[in-house]
């Protein structure tokens, strides 16, 4: 059989084995899904399968075409196996979208017309035509992820390993990925997808496993159904804390935000949703003055953001960034968590409490870079919570989190809410939005197109389709 054969794959950091004697086969034309909780070793497995040395002891073999991936040079491996990494940003080479897609094709020494054809195909499939000449750094997280998927798939490897490829994708992006996966299958390629949630991709999976305790267990491809609790009603006075009036914002490529009006009150959780590139992150970056309005005004706690520096606003607003990798700046988990509260002159207790809330109390001496993606996101949240903010802004906090951590996150958000705090969340995860939000605000091409209670938007098919949102797991049964 000309496929991928994994035999006795064992991988350990120090004395703890992360992967314990794994053996499985993946044939060409087969799509295998692997899920598991945060820290179960999905990324380690992905790296092993793609032959990336991750600083751990690896035993066993991964055989493709008679070569052992674990012992080969990268140039031999990449022709056969390529990977879409969880921290996909580091895979980007080109400075513009077009550059990045073309770079690999040029290295393959393909004829000019062939490159042209593949480039056009990739831009069309992932709806990136509009962004063709954009600098990668100007793109939103989801669009970057699309570029990486496009640039990798287009190289035509025999096997594609996808590590959490949907973490930042909007619903149309997930659907595009699904059709790409079936197309790969029809081209007799093998696909291994490792992800926290495989929602939207279940139909194309041939086999499905759960990685637990370093071993694979066959399972059925249904998503873990969350509890779908309804958000409790609060009987308290709500005061306006965020007032965005007629906000327009322009980067070099034209207006990203157009005529945005938004009011958020205390004790309120507002979720901002919308497709990739609709301006979600740009909007929330106005809430702590990281961006200043081109036109219009933003008021936080009654003060105009134009009159304050971001550092001054840190007293009121804490911000959790979308890509924790780029925003972590300290050498230990403790330093990272305490950075904000020390700047604001708050006692260290805040940081301690925040860390234990996020389940990182045992990790304080570790390097933040040694944490897995879910851990890094939790650390960013802890670091924000430690500043005891009145307003907490969370940009894609569900990235890399498992069901258990999401539950903790939900409870934290709801506790803050009943404590009179304001929470603004940006997410693509409709199920998460349904469970935590008082209100959902939908952005589309820089304009607010809907602002209502979650059920009014996320349970209505016409809105989901019109706004390109992810449909929630179960409809209307609560």
């Amino acid at each position, binding site marked *: 059989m000309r496929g991928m054969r994994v035999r006795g794959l064992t991988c350990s950091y120090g004395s703890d084995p992360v992967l314990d004697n794994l053996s499985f086969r993946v044939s060409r034309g087969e799509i295998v899904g692997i899920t598991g909780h945060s820290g179960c070793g999905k990324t380690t497995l992905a790296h092993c399968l793609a032959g990336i040395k991750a600083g751990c002891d690896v035993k066993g073999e991964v055989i493709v075409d008679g070569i052992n991936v674990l012992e080969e040079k990268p140039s031999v491996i990449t022709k056969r196996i390529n990977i879409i990494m969880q921290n996909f940003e580091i895979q980007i080479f080109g400075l513009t979208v077009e550059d990045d897609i073309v770079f690999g094709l040029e*290295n393959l020494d393909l004829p000019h017309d062939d490159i042209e054809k593949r480039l056009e195909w990739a831009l069309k499939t992932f709806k990136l035509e509009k962004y063709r000449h954009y600098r990668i750094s100007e793109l939103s997280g989801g669009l970057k992820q699309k570029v990486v998927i496009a640039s990798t798939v287009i190289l035509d490897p025999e096997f594609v390993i996808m590590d959490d490829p949907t973490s930042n994708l909007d619903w149309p992006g997930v659907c595009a990925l699904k059709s790409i996966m079936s197309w790969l299958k029809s081209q007799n390629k093998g696909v291994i997808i490792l992800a926290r949630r495989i929602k939207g991709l279940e139909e194309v999976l041939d086999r499905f496993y759960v990685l637990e305790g370093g071993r694979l267990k066959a399972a059925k491809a249904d998503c873990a159904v969350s509890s779908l609790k309804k958000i409790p009603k609060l009987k308290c006075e709500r005061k306006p804390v965020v007032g965005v009036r007629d906000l327009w914002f322009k980067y070099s490529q034209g207006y990203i935000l157009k005529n945005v009006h938004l009011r958020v009150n205390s004790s309120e959780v507002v979720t901002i949703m919308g497709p990739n590139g609709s301006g979600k992150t740009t909007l929330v970056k106005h809430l702590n003055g990281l961006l200043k309005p081109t036109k219009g005004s933003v008021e936080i706690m009654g003060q105009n953001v134009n009159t304050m520096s971001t550092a001054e606003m840190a007293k009121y607003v804490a911000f959790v960034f979308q890509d924790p990798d780029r925003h972590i700046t*300290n050498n230990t988990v403790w330093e990272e968590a305490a950075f904000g509260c020390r700047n604001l002159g708050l006692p260290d207790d805040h940081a301690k409490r925040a860390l234990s809330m996020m389940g990182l109390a045992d990790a304080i001496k570790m390097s933040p870079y040694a944490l897995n993606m879910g851990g890094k996101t939790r650390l960013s949240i802890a670091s924000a919570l430690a500043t005891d903010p009145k307003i907490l802004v969370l940009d894609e906090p569900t990235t890399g989190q498992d069901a258990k951590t999401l539950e903790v996150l939900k409870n934290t958000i709801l506790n803050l809410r009943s404590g009179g705090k304001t929470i603004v969340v940006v997410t693509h995860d409709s199920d998460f939005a349904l469970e935590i939000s008082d209100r959902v605000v939908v952005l589309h091409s820089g304009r607010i197109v809907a602002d209502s209670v979650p059920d009014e938007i996320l349970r209505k098919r016409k809105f989901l389709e019109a706004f390109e949102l992810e449909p929630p797991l179960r409809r209307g049964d609560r």
Partner: protein
Amino acid sequence: MGRPRLVVDPRVKVLAFFASMIIIFSATDITVYIVFLSLPVLLFRRIEMLRKLKIMLPAIVVAFVLWSTLYGWSIFHKFSGTEPEISIGGFMALRLMSIIMVSLAFVYSITPRELVTALSSLGMPYKTSLLVGLSFRHTLTMSDEYKAIKEAQTSRGLELDRGSLLARIKNYKFVLLPLLVRSIENAEKLALAMQLRFFDLEGKRTRFFKLKMTIFDYLIIVVLISAVSLAILHYVLRVI
């Protein structure tokens, strides 16, 4: 930074850069510098380019002071006496500003890809031009990293925009140290990114982006050559 609005062959851009430098260094006329200072702003329709000059203000001030006071001791000096020469200082400051402006305009108008293609088609070996392109790219990546780190730190109450100069300089270590670490990490990441895309220095590659000169480009070259010749004839050889 947006993409350039002018469609000019990158080779012409490289030539224009060198031509401008020759003219700037040979000119002794203030009007020439005023042209060089205003032309990029007009061409790119970007007023903020003038604001970028502000970052270089300390260097410009130092140049002004040094040239004004120490010119008399300079081995190049043509004037006698040790009186401060404000006019020389002002002239040199203007020259420095023009150099910065032209360099800025060059960086604004060319992408690393164009630079590599242009340099290698002008005869530079691929390895060398790739190296130039990579370092150029690294600078741009670092400016993005700098922004991200600054965002992370200011969002957590680190004051960089207000307060006394000394306090601000002290606080900048919380931005610059992580940036240094990031810079080293990025080199590793870049190697991985290139490996995953089959990059092989010895291997054959397609050159997808081909350069083609238009009549407009040739026109610019003619203008450039005449401008440089005029400048040399007028200022250096003093024949016209």
